[in-house]
Structures are given as C-alpha cells and as structure tokens.
C-alpha cells in the first residue's frame, strides 16, 4: 500500500490496525499529530529541548499503552492528555522553587478587567504578512499564564470541544470555560495594540 493512501483512512481504522501491531498505521497517526503535539509542548514548556522530549515521550507512551486507549474519546484527545502530563513534569523539574500545575489559575478578577476598548480594522490580519501575523499571535499566546494558554490552545487553536478539553486536561467544564474566557479577553487586549483602527476613526462606532 502506498504511503499516501493512508491520508484517506479513517482514524478509527488506523488505531485499530496500530493496536494489532501494524507499525505503518501507528507511524501514520504520529505524522497526523506530531506538528500539533510539538506546538502544544512548546507552548506549555516554553523550551524547545523540553518540547522535543515531550514529543518523543508522548508517542512512545501512546505506543506502549495503545491497548488502554478505549476508543470512546478521540485519539488526539487521548494523546493530548499524555503530552500535557509529560510537559507538566518538565515544568515542575525546571521550576523546583514552586510546583506548577494547570490547576493553579488564581482568580483575582484582574484578568477580566478590560483596559483598552478600541474598534479593530474590519480584517485586521490583512494588515500584516503571514510571517508577521504568526509572530504577533505566538507572542501574545506565550505571554498568557500556562493554565490559560493551554486551554486556549486546545479550544480555539486545535478546536477541541469544551468537554474534550476538560477531559484532556483533567479539568471540570466550568474551569475550562472560565479559563477560556480569561484567555480570550487577555489576548483581545494584547492584539488590540496591533489591530485597532488607525487614525481618527478609532472611535467611529460611537
């Protein structure tokens, strides 16, 4: 079978074949998700070397424990959970002064305070090249606290549902929702600097 023919194969079938010991099917699953897992690992650890370790450990563990994958959640949700756990262990090892967890978001109320209110351009992303835009978006996400960053990446970038995100992170649905709201509001605030309407019409909506 040609490698390219895998792309059309449904994920469930690939998982089933991988569980039967088919190495090519497992490799195809890795190829489908390695980019997303590497990005997520980089966002959580903020360290490239750690992210690479997390990437390898995630797929090694997934391969080892494939028989424990129940198939009642998506394969991606399952490996995200492994990846997040691995990434948190790295973080804890680096920051020995305090334990790090995704449960640590402290609700001070501060992070829902809206400081800047200015209308944006209609298609703000068109003011920038792809590369510039990528950098702006990455920098903004990186500046969020880990609990917010991780929820935002899974919900709004990887487009997992609220329930899948809760499952992958071992959080309750209300906790996912409250972090997502805070992450979105903080990002909105950060991006306003770049995307607000230029010149005198910034308050044209008034």
């Amino acid at each position, binding site marked *: 079978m040609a490698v390219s023919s895998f792309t059309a194969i449904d994920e469930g079938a690939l998982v089933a074949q991988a569980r039967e*010991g088919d*190495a090519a099917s*497992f*490799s195809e699953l*890795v190829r489908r998700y*390695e*980019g*997303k897992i*590497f*990005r997520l690992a980089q966002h959580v650890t903020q360290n490239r070397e750690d992210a*690479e370790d997390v*990437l*390898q450990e995630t*797929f*090694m563990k997934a*391969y*080892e424990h494939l028989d424990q994958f129940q198939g009642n959640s998506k394969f991606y949700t399952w490996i995200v959970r492994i990846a997040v756990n691995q990434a948190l262990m790295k973080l804890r090892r680096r920051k020995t002064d305090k334990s790090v967890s995704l449960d640590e978001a402290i609700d001070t109320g501060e992070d*829902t305070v*809206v400081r800047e*209110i*200015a*209308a*944006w351009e209609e298609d*703000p*992303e068109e003011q920038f090249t792809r590369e510039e*835009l*990528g950098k702006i*978006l990455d920098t903004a*996400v990186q500046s969020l606290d880990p609990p917010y960053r991780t929820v*935002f990446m899974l919900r*709004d*970038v990887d*487009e997992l549902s*609220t329930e899948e995100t809760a499952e992958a992170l071992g959080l309750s649905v209300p906790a996912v*929702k409250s972090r*997502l*709201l805070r992450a*979105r*509001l903080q*990002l*909105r605030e950060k*991006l*306003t600097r770049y*995307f607000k309407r230029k010149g005198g019409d910034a308050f044209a*909506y*008034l």
Partner: protein
Amino acid sequence: MPLLTCKDFLMELSDYLDEALDAELRAKLEQHITECPNCWVIADTTKKTVKIYKGMEPYPIPSDVEARLMAALEQKMAAKQKSVAAVRRK
C-alpha cells in the same frame, strides 16, 4: 426582565461567541450590545481574536526533530515486534 450589567455581559461572552447560550439569555446579550457601544466593541474584537487563531496550522515540525522521533519510535516498534514474535514461537 432585568437588564444585564457590562460585567454580566462579559461573564457570558465566551458562551455567547460559541453559541452555547439558551435563547433567552442570548436575546438579553444582544439587547445589551445594541445599547452599549463598549460591550459591542469588546464582543466584536474578541470574536475577531478567536477567528484569527482558529485553525492556525502548526509550523511544519523541523526535519531533525521528526527524524529523531521516528528513529526512536522505530526502535521501540522493532523491539515490541521481536518480543511478540518470541512469544508466538513459544
């Protein structure tokens, strides 16, 4: 029905953008943004924020990183297949 404050609006904003609210609350929020220009801007810019990020493709994984990942996995898979074969031979 009681009017929403801006703070109430903000608390429901995520669910509003995700279309996860019941019709009654949704109507209240929509009423609020027609009357409150600040909340309209916050809703509009938050919606644009989510839209810009949605589906952002990851950068292709660096080839050296992928090569090391695949090499590690191949080793592991080969080891497992060997042990499976050994069990079958018994």
